[in-house]
């Protein structure tokens, strides 16, 4: 089963060209692990970059660079950075280094049926959370101040009449006023990148917000 809700091409382009924030890059890397179609688009965008750079007018290079380089060719290889390895495939590998030592999220209860972990980032402009939401739960009617992207890792939900499941990305902004209904057969774990806290539109939602930093 491959995803049907993809990342828009302009975000893939900013990932490919290196302009996206770390939070968005993480979302893209996790999605393209699960989505061969967007992975292929990214490979194509790299091909475009490679062709553009290869076509540049060559610049002058000082002659001693190669000499310096030759001296370094025999240097011992740097220790390879310890790469996180996963035995179960719930979390795409790009996420693991953000989850801490045992590569398992340390869930904190935010509200009954809702668990959150905030991932550590050097740049805090865009908070990133992992959320685990109980099967059958409804996230009350709400909207957003800014951009919010959600990548489904387990389970699924229905939002604005569309079904999202593993690998799918839902991108929402202030134009959306919606509630989200989780599938009833499995807890939903998702990765959420957002610019701003969500704005609940119901009394129950506001009450819930007292608990939830989402």
């Amino acid at each position, binding site marked *: 089963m491959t995803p049907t809700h993809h990342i828009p091409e302009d975000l893939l382009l900013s990932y490919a060209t290196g302009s996206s924030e770390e939070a968005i890059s993480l979302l893209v*890397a996790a999605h393209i*692990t*699960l989505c061969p179609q967007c992975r292929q688009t990214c490979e194509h965008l790299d091909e475009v970059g490679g062709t553009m750079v290869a076509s540049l007018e060559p610049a002058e290079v000082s002659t001693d660079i190669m000499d310096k*380089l030759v001296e370094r060719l025999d240097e011992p290889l740097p220790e390879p950075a310890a790469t996180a390895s996963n035995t179960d495939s719930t979390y795409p590998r*790009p996420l693991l280094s953000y989850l801490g030592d045992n590569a398992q999220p340390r869930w904190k209860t935010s509200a009954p049926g809702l668990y959150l972990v905030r991932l550590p980032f050097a740049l805090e402009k865009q908070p990133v959370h992992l959320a685990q939401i109980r099967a059958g739960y409804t996230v009350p009617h709400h909207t957003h101040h800014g951009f919010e992207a959600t990548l489904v890792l387990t389970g699924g939900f229905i939002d604005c009449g569309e079904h999202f499941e593993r690998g799918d990305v839902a991108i929402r902004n202030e134009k959306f006023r919606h509630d989200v209904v989780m599938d009833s057969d499995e807890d939903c774990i998702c990765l959420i990148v957002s610019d701003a806290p969500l704005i609940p539109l119901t009394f129950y939602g506001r009450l819930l917000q007292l608990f939830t930093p989402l």
Partner: protein
Amino acid sequence: MLAIPIALFARRPEYRGRRRLMADRRKDPMVELLLSIANRRDRHCFKQLFDHYAPRLTAYLQKAGCSIAVAEEVVQEVMLTVWRKADQYDPQRASANTWIYTIARNRHIDHVRKRRRPEPDPADPALVSPAARRTDDEMEIIERGKRLKEALGSLPEEQAAILERAYFQGESLRVIAEEMKIPLGTVKTRVRLALNRLRKAVTRPEFAL
């Protein structure tokens, strides 16, 4: 009797076309150099590769806003990475141009922007493979590179300018819109048109993905 010469005549252009295609199907010398480095740690080949790429990478890094000193430092790191990781290069996945560009981009993000850029790991058990894996051979990749180059050269100036800012200056579309004083929607439309054109260039039926 007359039909035979006409038939021969009619076939000739196609025949010629095929010959030309055969002639185009040379190996990419840069790929050969990379493979020699991977297999034999051939320093002479590395020097040739350096002579080809260092001036282009320097141009790229200078366009990206690096001073000459920083550009030189990053080029050294990139070429050292090429030397060390040549055995990881797979000519069936990417051209030498593309592979070396991605190393340069990553070093630049690391070194100058001090930012992490998570990437998918081909060995990840979570990785979902395409239903039908596209079978690239090296020649196809070279052909695609040529078509892409042609298509890039024929992009309207207003589209090419945006791609250059995105790839070389590493600007987001929002910043490009501000800098060029055009609406973000227009920038996005131009990017979409440009990328559609480039995709079309590499997905002509005979080079279908």
